[in-house]
């Protein structure tokens, strides 16, 4: 977007701050807050690094792979997901009250936040743009099968689709089904198969490509 900047705040009354080029606006806010000693730019850099490189869907993929190979871990994960992911050192903001939803041949779970963008950060990182945007938020609850179809996922009529609207402090992670043909794979190899979309519920974990014979 490109709104021309103007100083005529009064025109906007109590509706809130006027829009301007976000880049300039963010710079202005940061420089003012820094001058007042309210933010430390080095801390800002470290926050960015944390959310850009330290958390992400690879965390969730490790959790899923562990649940596939270790039945006792799967039980702990389904009983108290926040405690179970803490075994990997994952936790903190937006993961305080984590709930894991297990897909089965008869149940397919799908996660949305119709009100904003609630998402399990410690295991999936920051949400993708589509998750936070109007098309997904509006339609996931009224037409989940249509939404899944847009992601290339056709759900059979005899499978129940369960949509979870994250309207409070619970954050949901889907435990996708383990694909056939992966019986001999290691936990690490399995984790590499698990996609972010499968842990939101808009995808399934595909069977691995046949490995070349040694």
């Amino acid at each position: 977007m490109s709104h021309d900047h103007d100083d005529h705040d009064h025109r906007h009354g109590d509706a809130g701050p006027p829009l301007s080029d976000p880049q300039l606006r963010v710079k202005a806010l940061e420089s003012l807050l820094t001058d007042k000693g309210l933010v430390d730019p080095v801390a800002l850099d470290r926050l960015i690094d944390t959310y850009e490189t330290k958390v992400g869907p690879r965390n969730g993929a490790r959790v899923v792979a562990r649940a596939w190979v270790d039945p006792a871990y799967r039980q702990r994960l389904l009983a108290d997901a926040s405690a179970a992911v803490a075994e990997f050192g994952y936790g903190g903001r937006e993961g305080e009250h984590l709930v894991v939803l297990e897909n089965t041949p008869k149940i397919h779970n799908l996660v949305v936040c119709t009100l904003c963008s609630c998402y399990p950060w410690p295991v999936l990182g920051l949400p993708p743009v589509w998750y936070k945007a109007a098309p997904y938020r509006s339609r996931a609850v009224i037409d989940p099968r249509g939404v899944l179809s847009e992601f290339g996922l056709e759900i059979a009529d005899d499978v129940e689709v369960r949509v979870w609207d994250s309207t409070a402090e619970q954050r949901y992670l889907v435990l996708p089904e383990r694909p056939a043909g992966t019986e001999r794979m290691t936990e690490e190899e399995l984790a590499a198969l698990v996609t972010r979309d499968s842990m939101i519920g808009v995808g399934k974990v595909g069977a691995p490509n046949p490995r070349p014979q040694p």
Partner: protein
Amino acid sequence: MNGVHDMGGMHGMGPIEAERDEPVFHAEWERRTLAIFFASGFLGKWNSDIRRQAFEQMPPAEYLATSYYEHWLWGLEKLLVDNGLLTREEIAARLAGRPVSLAQPPVGLRPLEASGVVNFVQTRKGVRMDDAVPARFKAGDRVLVRNTNPVGHTRLPRYARGRCGVIDRDHGVFVFPDAMAAEKRREPQHCYSVRFHARELWGPGASARDAIYIDLFEPYLEPA
């Protein structure tokens, strides 16, 4: 409030545009917005419910025409001004490249330091409460969602109001967002996952098999 943010069930928003190999951020200003947001939040002048309420004040036409981080930026600026950390004049002057004398922020605020970031990210928000509040409902109970239209902040989506569901599970006792946003009061309330048949919410055109689970606080519910 019955705002544009409450999107469940709306039509006409267009196709879902999923980007392949999407980066975490699409521009440097998005990175800075997120970080300034957290660092300002660390000052303790607001919490997630106050924050959500601030975001929901964005005029609907602007909300629909702008991106997610533009919503954050709008809400951030409002929170900074509302809480006396910055003034509109300061922001306008800095944007215009004019010198401005800076107003003193509230005393006693301690900024987030680089060494405190790991701890900050790991910190739990503390919205679960230990109060021994008796639960009005248990799993399996049939409930009716109250038809209510508060002008303040609520986590009760419009599409659930007046509908019947079944308690799936009791998540425990949490800070009630409506009271927190309105009065900064930590009111302990049970939060339940409530299961609704798709047809109860959307009528006979919806799947007979599917269900929607919504996390709802006890004051939103009554026995059905």
